[in-house]
């Protein structure tokens, strides 16, 4: 598999398909980051796409191809910040209410409609708790579970160490466990 650096160089040389591969490689992490910032699935998808296109337009300015991921995540952060400042964040809650509901209701094999509904309800509750975590913890959870990534991948996207990712994931899961068990009591 080609490295990010190789693909960036090819894309900078005019090979658009190389940038498409970078898009496929990074879109889940960019989407996770946007989701963590704006807390709305639908808005995050729009902002992630905007990020990926801005990345293409600005690719010629990237001097260190090996740092493509952190550079793209920086663009995502700015795109989200611009959106949050624009006042459009008022509509987030409408989006947030429908997050993940439709697809979570599909009954699995051997599962009754009631069981499917209960499972969907559990997932909604869990995702709502994830959304309410403080941002550093929300970020690591979303980055980690949106994609098949390692601590190093998450660390590169956030500009922190792998040990910090480990610590934040530990803390985030502990908070989720505590909140969910508190709701069940």
């Amino acid at each position, binding site marked *: 598999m080609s490295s990010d650096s190789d693909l960036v160089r090819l894309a900078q040389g005019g090979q658009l398909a190389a940038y498409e591969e970078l898009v496929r490689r990074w879109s889940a992490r960019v989407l996770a980051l946007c989701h963590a910032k704006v807390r709305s699935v639908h808005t995050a998808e729009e902002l992630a796409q905007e990020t990926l296109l801005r990345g293409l337009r600005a690719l010629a300015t990237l001097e260190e191809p090996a740092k493509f991921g952190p550079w793209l995540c920086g663009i995502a952060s700015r795109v989200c910040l611009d959106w949050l400042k624009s006042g459009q964040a008022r509509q987030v809650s409408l989006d947030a209410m429908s997050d993940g509901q439709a697809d979570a209701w599909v009954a699995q094999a051997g599962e009754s409609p009631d069981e499917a509904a209960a499972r969907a309800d559990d997932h909604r509750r869990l995702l709502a708790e994830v959304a309410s975590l403080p941002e550093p913890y929300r970020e690591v959870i979303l980055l980690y*579970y949106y994609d098949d990534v390692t601590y190093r991948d998450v660390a590169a996207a956030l500009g922190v160490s792998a040990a910090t990712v480990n610590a934040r994931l530990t803390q985030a899961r502990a908070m989720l466990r505590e909140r969910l068990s508190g709701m069940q009591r």
Partner: protein
Amino acid sequence: MRCEDVLDQLNARADGELPANEAAALDAHLAECSQCRAAAESLQAIDAELRTAFASRRAAAARLAERAAAAVRASAGAPASIAPPAAESRWAWGQAIVGLAAGFLLAVALFRPWQPKSVVTPTLPQREPIARLAVASGWVEVQAAGDIPAFMCPPSAPIGRDSMVRTGPTERCEISLEDGNALRLDCNTEVTLRESEVVEVNHGRLWLTCEPGRKGIEIQSGGGTIVAKPPAHLAVDCQPQAARLMVVDGAANVQAGQESIEVGPGKQVRIVQGKVEEAPVSFDPVLETAWVNSVLALRGSEHPELVERVDRLLANVGAAKLSLLYEDELRRLGDDGVPPLVAYLAATRDTPNVAQRGTAARIVADVAQSRWIADLIALLTDANAEVRFHAARGLERLTGRNQGCDAQKWQSESWASCESAHEKWLNWWAANRDRYPAARRDIPAPTSPPF
């Protein structure tokens, strides 16, 4: 090894990140510590739950990747290749052709999201356009008249007479017709543009905006003909054997067989095998045509029509929540539950004495965050005294001030006694609104006297 140090290692091991040289020490500790063993089991459970809960998000990420890749091709204005067989390089360029039409560059992409192997290399038809693809959430398929193969049409591309336009399973679009009217197509919809004022719906869902002073539009669907009378907003749902017409605003004439009837605003009819059938009168145009929102959103979330539709949708949600949920349950939603309640309060100002309005205002006053300050100031002019009382209470909670008029006064005294306080709130907001970027900017002027 201390238990608090073990947690990071447990997580690292669950994630396949624990260095081999630390595993033995961790196992030794777990063998002795039942508390940490329980923590390990609990960790596995929450990890499994998260993985399941995020399955749909991962699928969404995969879809985004494909959409973004297609957008990359489109934004470059250059053709892309269909991916060659796996044995070849993934990003070898294909043999696509760029078509140049008079005065503008139109990239003819060979990428078809739902039929990836169908490769065509057409030259664009040199016909006078009768319509233009105004916005689209992705690539839309257009087939010009004659034997010219279908091609994928990027936004702003012109569309000629007798062209078939088809959206895929995830694409929606808006088409600007030459005479100033507009069509919006839902996913999996196919229409043929016979003329700029004659549209044949082959299948799918369509929204028609017929602007005042423009020509009426004729829609052929389900064996009948619908003629919109401007100004009008119509929605058409075309199934294999039947079509359903919803007149959202304005009116339309429906002709099928020997029948010809006029359908007014808020009414709907079905056309089945060339006959007009009555359909249930009651329908909610905002809910029935919710798909239109995502087309409007392509023009930006501040699009006035979208804002109005979202407010109406939120007001419906607010009314439903107030009817179906206990007040405690609504309060537990916290600030996330406030948007539908505020929209409901705004939408029901003409019926100020509905009992639920007091409940809605009370919850908003207690749980709303500072982004709702402007909306609370707007509620100070509500005709319902209880709503004003709670709005003033909420403002005092969020800002620590009452502008010389406490909540009780807003409930019990006349507008003349409260007017100066209202003026102070408006001035305060003008001076402070930049501190609340998530809040609405402007507060509508009150009617005089508002209560």
